[in-house]
């Protein structure tokens, strides 16, 4: 029996819907839920916490069916992107408010508030009203308020998406520390992969209210299964056919390219090859290297994406994306129209079916 089990959850609230979602989480898991906007991730959280009643399906927490429990009986906390701190209370009051239903003793409440404030570094801010705090501070206060009650389950609904990159990084570290200290099971909705890498031990990909893939981050990112997941995760997806086997390598002819993959396949089989953009090396000349795949192409586009550069390379009639640093982009003098070689290892050309 899992710690949290969501079984066949169905709900339609107009703009969003859940159609038969199933999830499992063990105690202490940090589960990242990712998926495009409008995929029903937030709705799923709000159904688990009990703000919406599902039309079908069950939610089981610690072996108890809580599907019909009101939200105040579930011992689940939530942190939203817009922090939702009560504007008429100062930070101390906000955190203490969460505790008052659990603890009666004023001294004990104060001690608990001070402790969590210490962990999240907001000890100095306790007497301030939420409106006077920065985005990162508000979010830390909101996390403190949710964690201080030691909930069975902590739900995070894109808590960092309104923050700048540096604050995000800092907050992730603090959150990690706080969660270890308060040993909570977490469901974290995000579309930021950094969140997944830094925090999660399991990933669930959702689209249109359905679970597309679940597993540990490594396997989901390295070997995204259906086409959608691969595209959403931003890998290059090339359709092709297995031509031959060369020793331990599979040779795939995909969209005019000859690609060596170390994944096994049968000759004649129709397959899809996935190559992560960050595993492609761009070079001005064809290199002699251990990487088995070197394809010649032409740069068709260069885009900045956060602190990295995405380079689109046209190869025959296909196009693949590579992610490099701005420095490398400058060194290689990349601009549309330039000839370039894309180099990648056979082990990074994943065959997905």
């Amino acid at each position, binding site marked *: 029996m899992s710690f949290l089990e969501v079984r066949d959850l169905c709900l339609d609230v107009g703009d969003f819907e859940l159609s038969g979602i199933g999830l499992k989480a063990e105690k202490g898991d940090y589960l990242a839920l990712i998926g495009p906007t409008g995929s029903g991730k937030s709705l799923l959280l709000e159904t688990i916490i009990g*703000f919406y009643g599902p039309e079908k399906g069950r939610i089981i927490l610690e072996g108890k069916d809580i599907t019909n429990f*009101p939200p*105040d*009986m579930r011992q689940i906390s939530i942190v939203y992107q817009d922090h*939702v701190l*009560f504007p008429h209370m100062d930070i101390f009051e906000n955190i203490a408010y969460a505790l008052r239903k659990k603890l009666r003793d004023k001294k004990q409440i104060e001690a608990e508030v001070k402790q969590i404030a210490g962990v999240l570094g907001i000890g100095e801010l306790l007497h301030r009203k939420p409106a006077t705090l920065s985005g990162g501070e508000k979010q830390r206060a909101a996390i403190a308020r949710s964690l201080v009650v030691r909930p069975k389950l902590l739900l995070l609904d894109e808590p960092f998406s309104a923050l700048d990159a540096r604050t995000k990084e800092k907050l992730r570290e603090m959150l990690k520390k706080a969660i270890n200290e308060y040993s909570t099971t977490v469901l974290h909705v995000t579309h930021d992969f950094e969140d997944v890498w830094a925090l999660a031990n399991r990933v669930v990909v959702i689209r249109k209210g359905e679970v597309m893939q679940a597993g540990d981050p490594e396997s989901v990112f390295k070997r995204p299964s259906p086409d959608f997941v691969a595209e959403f995760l931003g890998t290059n997806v090339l359709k092709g056919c297995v031509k031959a086997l060369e020793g331990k390598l599979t040779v795939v002819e995909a969209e005019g390219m000859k690609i060596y993959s170390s994944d096994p396949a049968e000759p004649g089989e129709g397959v899809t090859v996935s190559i992560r953009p960050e595993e492609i090396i761009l070079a001005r000349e064809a290199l002699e290297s251990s990487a088995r795949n070197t394809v010649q192409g032409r740069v068709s586009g260069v885009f900045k994406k956060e602190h990295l550069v995405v380079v689109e390379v046209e190869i025959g009639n296909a196009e693949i994306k590579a992610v490099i640093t701005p420095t490398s982009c400058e060194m290689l003098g990349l601009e549309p129209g330039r000839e370039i070689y894309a180099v990648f290892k056979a082990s990074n050309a994943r065959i997905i079916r």
Partner: protein
Amino acid sequence: MRCLKSRSVNHSWFRTFTVGIACTFTFLLFMTIGTLLFVLKPSDLLSSLLSEEMLYSMKLSMLTSSASTISVMCCSIPTAYALSRFSFPGKSVIKTVLGLPMAFPELVMGLALLLLFGQGFLGPYLEALGIKVTFSKLGIIIAQFFVAFPYAVRVIYSTFEDINPRYEQVSRSFGYGEFETFRHVTLPMARSGLFASGVITFARCIGAFGAVLVLAGGSYMHTEVLPVTLYLNISYGNLEMAITSGILLMGIAFLAILSFEKFEGGRM
């Protein structure tokens, strides 16, 4: 630089037109109000103000309006909350019915109330309990209540709508029940909106005329509230008294709008 440049640009005729209309008619309105203030000599104003009839009327207006404002607030807060947060059968009907009195004349409302509380329907039963609504002071309060209630519901409804239900949901998740959440989170967050609607309700109640006249009757020194004083004295040709009650009503309205603006941050 930009600012200077835009100032020297020729304004479009449309802009001139709209600003012109705004200025002209606001000026006319201001003139109208001004006339009311400067027609009377201060000594006349003072003597009418201190006349027995005016003092009675002021006192009765204050008392009835306070009573009706309190009852309106007690009923409109739950009504507005239910409309804003819950879905229940008949909700849209309730919304429509509450919207009606804003469009139809107060006088008709008074007539309807007179029929309801008169001899035909509720009157005999209430009278058996010793309650007399028609042509009584209680009638004033009831008329004011029904005039102001729909407005109050609307203002409070929009106040509740402005509060993201997530605040309440978060409070629920910490183990607070619905009523506790309402008391600790929703009410404090709605405070300024509630105050503003209280003020508007009071102004509405004190200014209610048609419904009051029909249901409570406009009898001298009995059910005479400020608008009734104005009306009665115009009919007698006693202009000093009429103007004085007009100035009083205007002063109250002015104070109401002033505090409304202050608390609602001038939303229009």
